[in-house]
């Protein structure tokens, strides 16, 4: 069982639903006994509530309204299941859908559940059969009409969907362009920072051809470029380490060279990170590790600018 501090760290993940099922069960058990964590969850949960509404708002197609109302209304609701027979549902549908004269006929249906009107009708023995025949004919006619409408709605939906997909594709292109611009902006931000440090990294015996350069600023983050890095073996990954005056190296993140052995990456660094004195790239198991264990591929000392 994890300790309180460790569990408290999980409150945010819990609120977002990002814990694994086992972690979630453990956290909920803890939550029942810990007022502090419950309070943390309560304040963070307002954020989750806001996230529901924070998505870009867009309008569903007008055809969806008709589709939902038709499909959903066709099945009885909870209370209706208990009190209204299926024939009654048809009669009710026709009353709203058909023109008023036909609807009036449909309401004279032969069933005691329809209320006082029905008992009056019952005095004439023929009337129930006529009414039943009328509702049947009406149901058939409405069925054909509904089928025709469905075809037309279906056709319109297809056309609308195609238009929406085209619009989506252009939105995606705009989003891609925006992302590229944002990446470029953060690179510029790092390079223009007043507290900039530069670190040139040289290839080690494991990769003598490799080289890299990093620019770091406490306020703006880290820009890292490398070339001639060999592709990592399967199940292994490159990890970038920042060395400071403190004894433990700090992981900046994982590096993924492209097919040409190049890396172009921007990392955030903790705001309380001391000024880097050196950086190193090591080879580590996939997913990265908390402290370096593998061979060094690139190493370099900081130069102040």
């Amino acid at each position, binding site marked *: 069982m994890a300790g309180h501090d460790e569990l408290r760290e999980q409150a945010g*993940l819990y609120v977002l639903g990002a814990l694994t099922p086992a972690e979630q069960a453990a956290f909920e058990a803890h939550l029942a006994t810990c007022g502090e964590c419950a309070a943390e969850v309560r304040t963070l949960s*307002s954020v*989750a*509530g806001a996230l*529901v509404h*924070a998505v870009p708002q867009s309008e569903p197609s007008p055809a969806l309204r008709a589709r939902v109302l038709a499909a959903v209304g066709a099945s009885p*609701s909870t209370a209706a299941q208990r009190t209204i027979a299926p024939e009654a549902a048809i009669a009710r549908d026709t009353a709203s859908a058909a023109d008023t004269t036909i609807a009036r006929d449909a309401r004279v249906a032969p069933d005691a559940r329809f209320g006082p009107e029905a008992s009056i009708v019952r005095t004439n023995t023929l009337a129930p059969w006529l009414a039943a025949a009328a509702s049947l004919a009406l149901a058939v006619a409405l069925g054909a009409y509904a089928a025709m409408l469905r075809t037309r709605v279906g056709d319109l939906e297809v056309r609308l969907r195609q238009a929406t997909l085209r619009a989506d594709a252009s939105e995606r292109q705009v989003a891609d362009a925006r992302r590229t611009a944002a990446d470029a902006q953060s690179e510029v931000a790092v390079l223009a920072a007043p507290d900039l440090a530069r670190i040139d990294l040289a290839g080690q015996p494991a990769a003598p051809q490799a080289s890299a350069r990093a620019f770091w600023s406490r306020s703006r983050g880290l820009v890292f470029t490398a070339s001639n890095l060999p592709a990592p073996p399967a199940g292994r990954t490159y990890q970038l380490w920042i060395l400071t005056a403190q004894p433990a190296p700090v992981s900046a993140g994982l590096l993924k060279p492209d097919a040409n052995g190049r890396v172009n990456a921007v990392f955030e660094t903790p705001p309380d990170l001391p000024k880097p004195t050196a950086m190193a790239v090591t080879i580590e198991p996939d997913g990265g590790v908390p402290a370096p264990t593998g061979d060094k591929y690139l190493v370099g000392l900081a130069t102040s600018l």
Partner: protein
Amino acid sequence: MWFLGAVVDRSGLSGRWVEDHVADRAALARMARGDHDGLAELYDRHARPIYSLALRILQNPTDAEDLVQEVFSQAWQQAGRYDASRGVVAAWLLMLGRSRAIDRLRARRARPEDRADERAVANIADLGPPPDLQVLSVEQIACVRAALGELPVLQRVAIELAYYEGLTHVEIAARLEQPLGTVKTRIRLALIKLRDTLAGTV
């Protein structure tokens, strides 16, 4: 268990959201009696946010529309069992929408290791939000939306993968190729920043 914010305008500018909530309850009661107009009314008020959330999660207009239908179908079937203590109707509908959408997303990924999570999410979906709902104003939501856009890219992406794609932190770490601890820290920092933004707008 999900804590969903209800959109209630406490600024007193219009009180429209409070009125909507009262009207929502009345519409549900009418739906429980089999009244289709109640359903139409609920649809007109809430289809847009539910559709928008579903579209964000499923990334596909057809699936998002199917999901809206699923949510209203469930609302129709459960209208008679709706318990006021489960909170604001709008939040209930959105919670249903998010759970069902993430169910679909997980089914779409359909990797064997997802099945346990899938069951967990299916169970979550039936719990409903607890009674201590947070109440958010329209202004607060606008601020959170803006704050979300201002988060460092990786923090924002981590939050979005968790909330809109239903990934666990372990899956997020794998997707972003970041160590687990880094992902946890990023999500925590981002949530605290968003929460402070929210607190600052009360």
